[in-house]
């Protein structure tokens, strides 16, 4: 029943898991559990294709698989013919700002714009090109001038905030395309990516009065959703991860402004003022629930995002609510996950496994002993350790797994925006400090 896994795919999956990040490809080889969640999102993607709008907050603990889930959703969306844009939030990438952080988020989203044929980002120029091709084809069919079709198709876009200039830039791209003027094409693409630094420069080059700015990022995402549809795609999926960075903002004003932006998006999606667009955003429970700094501190959001109490009482999960609380994996699912990873190492060959089933059980028992229940609740670190173990066995066939398992280290680590201090002469001292403070709890 197992399919062979290509060496390149195998390599990519292993490397990503070792680094504790989500693999870019081959997710289906390792995916376990969360059937309800996946199904709910599949329904959502269909809604987007039907011109609807979707808003989803994916809430789960650190390392519980949010990012994995978001990537899976993006993969499904791409398969279903959507365009996806994605980015993590960070101290300098926010939903709302006045000094460039929102624009910086937009830049990142545009860099990561993907389609089925370009799943790893950088798809923006090909989408614009596809739009032109679609227009040409239609012009041929209807025996019309191409530029006229372009105008017609962009008419809907023009009505939105910022849409007029967007349409103009796309038209300029078409003209550059026709005239073989690469400079003009490049300028237009740069504008669409939000990479013009000042309005003056943009006006000189393209004759438009506006550029993408902090305050218009969301407006342009809505424009994109219509545009990709006009180019023949199903719609736009915006996937934003690490919303916990908003929770971490030290300035209340800045945080509340970002929460207001989330409210605006939520309202637009629920009230139908946005079309063919879906927002899927990942955050931790404290980001959502903290009554003083979390989303719940903002009353208007709290009431809209509150859990379905009926479902809760009935002991079931309401997969249709805007907030999707990721169920933790259970030990059985964790076991299957390890089996899947083992199979990836064996390149899909059931007869070539590095470890017997009993070793998996021994490994899980060891992890349980080391870090308690979080070994399956927040699988990232467990998986990392497991992949390390398999790598050692893969490279040293003479080593017995029984010897290795006891020495496996499972860490509860966390990354911060602060660079790690690395200085060789202080390494030893640093290690000591780590021992004593890394498990620090208030």
């Amino acid at each position, binding site marked *: 029943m197992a399919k062979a896994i290509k060496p390149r795919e195998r390599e990519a999956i292993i490397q990503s898991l070792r680094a504790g990040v989500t693999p870019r490809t081959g997710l289906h080889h390792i995916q376990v559990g969360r059937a309800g969640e996946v199904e709910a999102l599949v329904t959502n993607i269909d809604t987007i294709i039907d011109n609807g709008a979707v808003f989803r907050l994916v809430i789960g603990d*650190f390392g519980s698989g949010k990012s994995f889930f978001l990537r899976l959703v993006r993969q499904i969306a791409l398969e279903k013919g959507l365009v996806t844009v994605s980015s993590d939030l960070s101290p300098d990438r926010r939903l709302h700002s006045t000094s460039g952080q929102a624009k910086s988020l937009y830049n990142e989203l545009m860099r990561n714009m993907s389609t089925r044929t370009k799943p790893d980002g950088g798809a923006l120029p090909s989408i614009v090109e596809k739009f032109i091709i679609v227009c040409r084809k239609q012009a041929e069919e209807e025996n019309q001038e191409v530029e006229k079709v372009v105008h017609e198709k962009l008419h809907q876009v023009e009505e939105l905030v910022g849409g007029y200039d967007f349409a103009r830039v796309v038209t300029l791209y078409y003209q550059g395309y026709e005239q073989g003027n690469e400079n003009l094409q490049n300028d237009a693409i740069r504008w669409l990516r939000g990479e013009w630094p000042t309005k003056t420069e943009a006006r000189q080059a393209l004759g438009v009065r506006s550029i993408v700015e902090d305050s218009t990022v969301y407006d342009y995402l809505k424009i994109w959703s219509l545009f990709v549809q006009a180019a023949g795609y199903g719609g736009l999926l915006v996937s934003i991860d690490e919303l916990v960075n908003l929770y971490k903002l030290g*300035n209340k004003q800045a945080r509340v402004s970002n929460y207001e932006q989330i409210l605006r998006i939520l309202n637009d999606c629920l009230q139908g003022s946005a079309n063919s667009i879906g927002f899927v955003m990942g955050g931790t429970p*404290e980001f959502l629930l903290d009554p003083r700094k979390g989303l719940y501190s903002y009353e208007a959001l709290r009431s809209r995002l509150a859990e379905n109490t009926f479902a809760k009482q009935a002991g079931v999960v309401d997969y249709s609510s805007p907030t999707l609380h990721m169920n933790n994996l259970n030990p059985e699912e964790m076991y299957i996950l390890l089996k899947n990873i083992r199979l990836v190492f064996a390149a899909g060959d059931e007869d070539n496994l590095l470890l017997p089933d009993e070793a998996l059980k021994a490994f899980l028992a060891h992890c349980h002993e080391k870090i308690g229940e979080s070994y399956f609740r927040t699988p990232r670190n467990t998986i990392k350790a497991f992949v390390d173990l398999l790598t050692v066995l893969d490279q040293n066939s003479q080593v017995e797994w029984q010897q290795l398992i006891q020495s496996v280290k499972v860490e509860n680590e966390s990354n911060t925006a602060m660079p790690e*201090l690395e200085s060789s002469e202080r390494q030893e001292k640093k290690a000591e400090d780590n021992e004593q403070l*890394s498990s620090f709890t208030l």
Partner: protein
Amino acid sequence: MSNKPDAFSKLNPIVQRWIHQQGWANLRSIQEKSVEPIYNRQDVIISAPTASGKTEAAFLPVLSQVAEIEEGISVLYLAPLKALINDQYTRLELLCQQLDTELTRWHGDASQSQKQRQKRTPSGVILITPESLEALLMRDMTWAAAAFINLSYVIIDEFHSFLGNERGMQLQSLLARLELLQQKKIPRIALSATFSDTRIISQALRPHASATPVIVQDEASGGDIKLQLRGYLKTPDGKDLSRRDSDIYRQLRGNNNLIFANSRNQTEQLTANLADLCEKSHVPNEFFAHHGSLSKDHRNYIEKRLKAAKLPTTVCATSTLEMGIDIGDVASIAQVGCPFSVASLRQRLGRSGRRGQAAVMRLFIDEPELTAEQKGPDLLCWRTTQSIAAVNLLLEKWYESPVTEAYQLSTLLQQVLAVVSQYGGVRAEQLYQLLCSAGPFTNVSIAMFSELLHALGDQDLLTQMQDGQLVLGAEGETLTNHYTFYAAFATPEEYRLQSGGKTIGQMPISSPLVNGQHIIFAGRRWQVLEVNMEDKVVLLGKAVGGAPPHFEGNPGLVARELRQEMKRLYLSVEQPIYLDAVARTNFERGCRNFRKANLHQQDYFEHAGNVYMAPWISDRGLFALEAMLREQSLSVSSAAPFIEIDDASVFTLKKGLARVVAGDKPDRTRLADNVADVTREKYDHLLPSDLRKQNYASAMFDVDEAWEYITNISF
């Protein structure tokens, strides 16, 4: 000097041309010597008195080196005072213009539009205060990361003023954070007054440095010094002090001078007295006050008037004018009241005698007249002796070193919150590494640091996320979002003093004012017309009479060497030639009483029912000793340079000392148990009480010195 043509020729041609334009025949020695280490990107300490060309010694080679850098800020110049920044701006403006290097002032009162321009396109040299740099890192880390990408040098002016205090710790922490942000070492150049302890100052420039900084010192012996110490008697009728005032008036009027007093109160009183003398003689007033509480306008006016040198001006100041603010040539310095620090006396002296002239300093030292209820220490006329001792050490080129034992927890707390706010979330061990094990707070152990974090958590200043990261709590957010957070030192809440619609200064709330009260402020006499508690405004009208309001402040800690020199003077009766007749009498009287009290044989004497100890150790040693005696239930009070034990005899003192010595060396923190208030610095109140005690004890007690003293004397 053999390398003379070499150093000059290494500089950028435009810089060379500028030097010619200044009409300088050649570079001064410190300017030559600093070129090479700066070009080698080493850490450099340039040490010389004020007005010896330190600024150019740093900036000529630095600007030559960065002239080609177009993108981003290439030089960061940090100074403790806004006024200093404004001065340096004027001084460097033309040179930077010729080099086409942008020069921007960045502090609370600097032009907003210039800052905005830098925000858009950062470039050139930024002149900034530590507080403004703190705000930049906390509020705009992303900008700072991009703007400082080509940062090549950090220049710190008046580096001595950053040693061993809150601002200095903050500055070191800021520089560590800046280097972490850029992931590279940025050469630091410190401009400092003369110092004696090379090790401590090197350590302060870059803690944990692998290489010692290059020290460039002025070899020239400095010009001549003309000194006079004039003695006075403080009598109940104040007659002799009026004589002092008229002496000052007579000797200083008609020239530009600086008068330094030890407190703002004294500054105010003296200025008012001198202004009165002008009025009595029907001549225009030329005496003005200058201290930290006065309004910016008032201070600017005085600084400009001094610099313009058109009208004779004498300014009565506190330590504010010790720093290198450009005030033009000053004929003489007057020091009223005895000096407590040799380094600060040197700074004060350095303000006169510019450009090859002799430095002139007069010390006006009063001693209490003998009365029946006089306290024991007054018998020894110690103020006169301390003044002579300070001058002696100054002539020997000895200066105090900063205290390095203090934990500085108040500033550590501020920096913890600042770093958490800067990055959003940080792990505990990252904080410890950055600030303590690889940072400036070297004395703080992991255990203390954890305790500090717990205390911050308990007060909701920090909270912890599920993955262990520390983030700001609700209280922490309120605290860090207020603009007053950026300063590591405390600024008391103040009244604004207004007259005729103009603000003339501020005054701490701690001194109550009532309607109708007469006060002296800005060297003038006023009557309080109205106190508006809500807006914290006091309206003043002109008046006659009045006393200066109470300002808080302490003269600083006295070093062991100064006390030892005093003892040597008492023993040798070695009289310097610069004393006037009254000062001589005072000094001789002190020495005579010293012998009479048998202090040449033992370190204690009885007087009027009290016992006094004279251990001739540093203030921190003295405080520790007091605390040890207090633990033996002796009623001890501070009477530096002595210890006073009330209602006691030599016998009880000896018994107490014996009990102390019989035990183990007392624990430093335990000694703080008997201190009523251990809150000293800005964020001390947020520390848990035992950390607060440890912090206080580390700063105020030198147990080793006290213990060494007490175990080596015979009693």
